């Protein structure tokens, strides 16, 4: 049974026409078929969050969706945030606050936080901790991740209140 499907995935505003079996998970398609390997795979069963990407703005576990389900949706991955020479504010905050060591979990955290802050810009500090508990990091002990994210959330709120003043 080689019931492969031709689908188009839109990753960071670029279209990829790919042919996949229905059982191909979204994260495998992003990495193997679209060649975007910034998104990592840890557990493959929804526990670790390394595979987190944005699908139509919502942070989701890309190991728990099939690629065919993401056809014609807008997918965003870590490659869409900033470049090595031009990191975005969240990436810079992770660096400044030492929020990564080995970096394996980092793309997942960055996409999780990007999605949550876009959708819930007024999220409180306690709720942010709850959100950050979604993903696993074996290195940092989380404290510096929390610091980095709070700093960015704070800056975003500041920028908005300046803009509305």
């Amino acid at each position: 049974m080689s019931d492969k499907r031709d689908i188009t995935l839109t990753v960071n505003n670029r279209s990829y026409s790919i042919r996949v079996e229905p059982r191909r998970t979204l994260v495998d398609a992003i990495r193997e078929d679209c060649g975007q390997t910034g998104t990592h795979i840890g557990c493959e069963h929804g526990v670790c969050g390394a595979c987190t990407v944005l699908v139509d703005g919502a942070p989701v576990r890309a190991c728990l969706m099939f690629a065919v389900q993401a056809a014609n949706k807008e997918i965003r991955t870590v490659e869409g945030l900033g470049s090595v020479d031009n990191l975005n504010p969240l990436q810079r905050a992770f660096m400044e606050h030492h929020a990564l060591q080995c970096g394996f979990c980092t793309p997942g955290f960055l996409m999780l936080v990007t999605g949550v802050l876009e959708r819930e810009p007024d999220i409180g500090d306690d709720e942010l901790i709850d959100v950050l508990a979604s993903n696993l990091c074996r290195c940092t002990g989380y404290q510096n991740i929390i610091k980095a994210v709070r700093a960015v959330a704070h800056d975003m709120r500041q920028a908005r209140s300046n803009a509305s003043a």
Partner: protein
Amino acid sequence: MKPARFEYHAPTSVDEAVQLLGSLAAEDGRILAGGQSLVPTMAFRLAKPGHLIDINAIATLGQIGSKDGALEIGACVRHAAFHRPVVAGPLGQLMSTVVRHIAHYPIRQRGTFCGSLAHADPASEWCLVAVTLGAQMIALSTRGARTIAAEDYFTGIMTTALAEDELLSQVRIPLLAPDTRFGFREFSRRAGDYAIAMALVTFRLDGGTIVEPRVGIGGAEANPRRIPEAEAALVGKPAELTTFRAAAEIAAEVVEPMEDMQADAIYRRDLVRAMTRRALEQAAQ
């Protein structure tokens, strides 16, 4: 691991989904809702369904609203929809309190209320809500529609009264009277884990005494259920700690706890006692 092969179907209407399920159920055809329980099971190869019928493209199943005194929740309504109250009054508040305990933010963006009811994990928060508040499940198949009451719905660990060819198209939960108080407490080892034990209670107060108490316990037995003996100990009593202690003690005595890697029966019984008392105290505040 990677899921085994399956054929993928993406119907765009409820009728089409029901027809597909009717003809493919015999070949282990299954509904794919949020995929947050099914896909992990497939990755472990504990499930190897021959066909998946993806209901995510059926717009009408995403509807939620109140009608005839009940909250109607369609099969594609995600956990995240409950982050903010979906109806005015205590029911919306109750559900937005409970939803924070289900998995994690990204999982709640995909997982569905009805999927939780179909999956029927012993420690599912939504299953506890459904039994405690007397929900009704609407099951559709090529044979027609039927309504299953919560007390007849759960039949064992991860098993329900739904037949293999039935789509759980909607769940209805009766709205709560405006002065209904509620309390919810669960214990799990890490944030987002399934609970080892949990309690959901509701009651109203009439001049300081308790009326219409409901006490639901989840995570302790194969399925969540109401504990009538504990409810009887609350009726007509003052809403105070001694009453709550007595009811919690009864709940702990009458449950027959499961034992697993996380907790033995003695520990679960202790947790049932503590969660029940704390939920009652929360409701009284």
